């Protein structure tokens, strides 16, 4: 019945996602032309001779019309060919793959921890709103949400790394165990920032839903608290929690970049920062496009989850269709 509606909704969302990606690709493509000295200077470096610059122009096809160049760039990018790094000659895709080995566990583990701790604490404090646990948690969450990731990272690094010597403070580490040890503080940093946001939205929404009539009615019917929270309250609060999860994932990618810089982790974020400092344009373009594609996908998944979670969204979409 609603398959058609979902398909139409999905088609609209996909079109919007493609539009966002096109905008990013144009910006990223133009960057190379707007950069001081133009693309050949960016590729050849400060000390390139005029002859070298001319060669670079020819080899990169920079004398072709702009539209043609953009089309070439776009069709390559669609085939995941972002060219090679100017600094290391390594294909950009390989460099991104290597970075993902650090960034993927960092973001994924943090996100799982944030979802578990954030929703659990949020639900608990909503039940005891006004109590001392609630007030302490809300206060801490406000501090956590106000602290930029690189500040939290630095404080954790100073306390647990430098003062107590419990954990390594710099680098990625070799082998699984060492890498895991090196990721503890970065994951803790991201978890603190994200949990604060997750807890705030869960607590607010659960508290609102708990005050609604259907919860009172469910209590009156003698349903257990666990049943009410699991079946009724969390599903009603679900939309806002899922929306916030999407924002948190996007945040984790941005803040992950700063955390990777602070802890000297060789992830995708660090790859981008290094490429920016070295003016390594193909790497900048590749990483930015991959990150944008990831974020657009996350937003799409969030939209689809609305349908799965809330029948009212389905009905509403059907009514409009």
């Amino acid at each position: 019945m609603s398959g058609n509606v979902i398909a139409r909704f999905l088609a609209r969302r996909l079109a919007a996602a493609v539009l966002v990606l096109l905008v990013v690709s144009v910006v990223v493509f133009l960057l190379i032309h707007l950069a001081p000295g133009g693309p050949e200077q960016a590729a050849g470096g400060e000390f390139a001779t005029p002859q070298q610059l001319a060669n670079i122009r020819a080899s990169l096809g920079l004398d072709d019309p702009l539209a043609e160049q953009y089309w070439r760039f776009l069709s390559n990018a669609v085939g995941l060919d972002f060219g090679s790094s100017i600094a290391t000659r390594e294909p950009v895709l390989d460099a991104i793959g290597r970075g993902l080995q650090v960034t993927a566990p960092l973001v994924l583990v943090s996100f799982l921890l944030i979802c578990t701790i954030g929703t659990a604490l949020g639900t608990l404090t909503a039940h005891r709103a006004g109590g001392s646990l609630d007030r302490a948690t809300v206060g801490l969450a406000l501090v956590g949400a106000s602290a930029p990731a690189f500040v939290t990272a630095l404080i954790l690094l100073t306390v647990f790394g430098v003062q107590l010597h419990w954990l390594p403070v710099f680098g990625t580490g070799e082998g699984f165990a060492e890498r895991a040890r090196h990721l503890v503080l970065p994951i803790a940093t991201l978890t603190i920032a994200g949990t604060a946001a997750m807890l705030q939205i869960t607590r607010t929404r659960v508290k609102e839903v708990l005050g609604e009539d259907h919860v009172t009615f469910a209590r009156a019917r003698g349903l257990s608290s666990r049943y009410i929270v699991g079946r009724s309250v969390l599903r009603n609060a679900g939309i806002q929690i899922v929306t916030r999860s999407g924002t948190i994932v996007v945040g984790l990618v941005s803040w992950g970049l700063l955390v990777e810089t602070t802890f000297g982790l060789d992830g995708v974020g660090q790859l981008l920062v290094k490429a920016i400092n070295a003016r390594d344009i193909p790497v900048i373009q590749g990483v930015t496009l991959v990150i944008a594609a990831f974020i657009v996908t996350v937003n799409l998944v969030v939209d689809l989850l609305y349908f799965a979670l809330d029948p009212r969204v389905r009905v509403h979409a059907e009514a409009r269709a």
Partner: protein
Amino acid sequence: MSVPDAKAAVTARDGRRSRSRSRARRTGMPVSVALSAVALAAAILCAIAPGLLAPQDPALIDPAGGLQTASGAHLLGTDALGRDVLSRVVAGARSALVGPLILTSATVVISTFLALLAGYLGGWFDAVVSRVADTIYALPALIVTIVIVGVFGGGWWLAIGVLVVFNTPTALRILRAAVIERRDLPYVEAARTIGVSRWSIMVRHLLPNLEPMIVTCFFLGFTYGMVELSALSFLGLGVPPGSPDWGRMLAENRVQVAQNPWAAVAPGIAIVATVLSANILGGWIYERLERRKRER
């Protein structure tokens, strides 16, 4: 559990909360808000007259006295170049406050203007504005800003300009929703009926009623801006090298965190304290404005 029981449990919980709220209302200002106001006032004082509070010249280099730990002469120690950390934290308040202030002012003015036009007039203008705002909103603001500012080799004004573009959709969404919520209320309809011009309705009738939302957006934009700008400075893309800035100090001094941890931690705490204070104060002012609006 019977129905009255459940109701009683709910109201008991609410009762406890509202009692503590009303106590706060009687005394006027909760302690956290008072502390936030004091902290922000101190930061503003540092920004206006750093010489008044800084014990030393923040740029004074003392090669022999580098990386001292906290002492009577240097309350927070010195950095690698022997500059007094406390003085640099005090001097850093200026760029820390001025940047976000310019950023959020520009964002709020632009988004209020667009929200009034798009929300009240609707039509194609609303469609275009909303679509563009949604597209920008879907981009990872911090990363795109880092890329753009980075490729152009950094720059404080460029950073602010790019961030205005990326922060406007957030405020615009809040304000546009508020305009749409109000545009068919009786007072607006009445004004329309007696022939008040559209411009006048927007400026004289809708704008004043947006005040709580505008204040919220202002504080929100301030805290966002402070975090984003200090992050850019942390990556070396914001303020020029050498200038006292909290984000940049953190980046410069984190390498020597073993010798003098305060050199990096103190500016970090300054950022958190300012953002936290602005969050608390902003929330409190919003609640007061909303309450006053409702009571009227």
